[in-house]
């Protein structure tokens, strides 16, 4: 099982053998984000930008105008918080061909605590006009998204995680921008998720099936753009929708689903995620359990909410 940061680096190393446009700009975290693999394979196209993320974004914008495809390496928080202004004005507002490899999203950031845990990034990034926002579930989807993003002209935000949560796809996976993915069919309610949380949700649904609760599981790899009618179609057979994300319950996937359904096909949406709270330093399993996002926690919460419905 390969972590998304490894999938990111390995895919770029491979793509750059053929594609001379690719450069990687790093914010002094290459041995965490795994951009060091790219530095070793393509030293002439690895540009260390130091601990200066805002400048890194601006440099990438300048290079992109000359035909380079700059991929940025840093932690999620340093993009969506520290460098959000240059990302907004220089990248999104000019439709710059810059790819943001946002490593270490969500809670599982390797004992860093809340300072480095980004649980607001989806809300921030999806509010920016013109920004593509992708959240892969596993290494196969991650690799396919990187290939898509490298060929697409425009800004892309790729939400990566430090550690893997399992796999749901295989080497034959084909990415289709904007399209939701069924991971499981089920009758009683629909569970919608994104990123590696989708893997844990599938596990939770399989567990609930043993308790005669039959859930559909829908994975949203492309937060933006999104085929809204496909999502509405998927929801149409259900009275009850659960959204689960390793992110705040405000403004991310849950917000997106609630916005769409309330305007088009109102029904009950229960959102799981960080409930207006910050995280803390702890092992991954502790964090997922405490904040209700482990497969076990998701299945128990759904079972309880399902009985109350």
């Amino acid at each position: 099982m390969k972590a998304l940061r490894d999938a990111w680096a390995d895919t770029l190393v491979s793509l750059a053998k053929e594609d001379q446009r690719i450069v990687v700009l790093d914010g002094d975290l290459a041995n965490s984000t795994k951009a060091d693999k790219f530095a070793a394979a393509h030293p002439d196209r690895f540009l260390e930008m130091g601990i200066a993320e805002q400048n890194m974004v601006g440099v990438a914008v300048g290079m992109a105008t000359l035909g380079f495809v700059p991929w940025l390496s840093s932690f999620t928080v340093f993009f969506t918080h520290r460098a959000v202004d240059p990302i907004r004005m220089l990248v999104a507002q000019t439709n710059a061909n810059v790819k943001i490899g946002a490593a270490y999203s969500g809670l599982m950031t390797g004992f860093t605590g809340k300072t480095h845990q980004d649980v607001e990034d989806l809300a921030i990034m999806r509010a920016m006009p013109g920004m593509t926002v992708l959240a892969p579930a596993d290494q196969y989807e991650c690799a396919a998204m990187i290939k898509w993003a490298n060929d697409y002209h425009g800004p892309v935000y790729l939400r990566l995680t430090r550690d893997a949560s399992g796999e749901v796809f295989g080497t034959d996976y084909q990415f289709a921008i904007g399209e939701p993915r069924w991971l499981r069919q089920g009758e009683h309610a629909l569970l919608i998720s994104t990123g590696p949380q989708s893997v844990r949700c599938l596990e939770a649904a399989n567990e609930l099936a043993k308790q005669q609760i039959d859930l559909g599981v829908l994975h949203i790899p492309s937060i933006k753009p999104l085929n809204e009618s496909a999502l509405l179609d998927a929801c149409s057979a259900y009275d009850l929708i659960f959204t689960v994300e390793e992110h705040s319950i405000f403004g991310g996937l849950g917000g997106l689903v609630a916005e769409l359904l309330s305007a088009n096909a109102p029904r009950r949406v229960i959102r799981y995620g960080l409930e207006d709270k910050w995280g803390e330093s702890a092992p991954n399993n502790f964090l997922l359990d405490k904040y209700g996002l482990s497969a076990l926690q998701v299945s128990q919460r759904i079972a309880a909410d399902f009985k109350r419905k």
Partner: protein
Amino acid sequence: MNADSNYSELEELSRRGRWLVLSTVAGSGAGHVGGPMSAMDVLISLFFRGMDIKPEEPGWPDRDRFVLSKGHSAIGLYTVMALRGFFPVEELKTFDKGNSRLQGHPDVTKLPGLETSTGSLGMGLSVGLGFALGAQRKQQRFHTFVMVGDGELQEGMVWEALHVAPRYQLGNLTAILDWNGLQQFGWLKQQDGDGRGDRRDPWNNVDLAAIFADLGWRVVQIDGHRFDEIIPAIQESKAQPPVGCPTMILARTLKGKGLSFTEGKFEWHSKVANSTELDLARRELQIVEAAK
């Protein structure tokens, strides 16, 4: 052509540019004046002498790049671009008026000839660094100029770029500091001699030349209103080997330069002239067109 006649053409253009700034802002009812006035002589020098550009082909790949990092001086840049032939001078009247290519801050998606969008301060030098680094990697020979304001030099992102540029030996990059000593509000003067205007110079008693030199920049200090100092400084920058030190031109300027009632007055950072002031400006700038 001797030096005097050489520069008299530029002086005439600068006077006309300053008039267009003041009158365009008055026509639109909003806009910045002090910054465009302090920057005008450097802008005229770049667009009429310093840079290799083709106004009729703004996307010419080998053109020298210019970034106005202090994007609120947009009307100064638009004025010089119009005078240089990028678009008709008449179009300046659309400034800030809706559906215009001339946005309040430069928008690269709207106006050909701009190289990036600026407005949120402190970001332009990083984009210029990207142009220069990309050119170095592709062995393209153009030079990149970035005008930075002394106000926005307070933004941390500028210092990120100042630190990184010398590491890549970007001799093809020149920053020009429009050091006019005033900002929108700033600090009160504490004593005589801490500024050229009616407020404190934010970098008073700071040895910027030494700081930039220590960071690895080739530093040149000039009077930003003397063409016989501006033009040689620009030409020397362009003559640097593309792999070497980036250049920082510290241009001492006067905010609101060129008009008795705007020079050194922080309130003219963003202010609209009334008819009396426009009449006075017309006389002081020797503008001969008929009064409206």
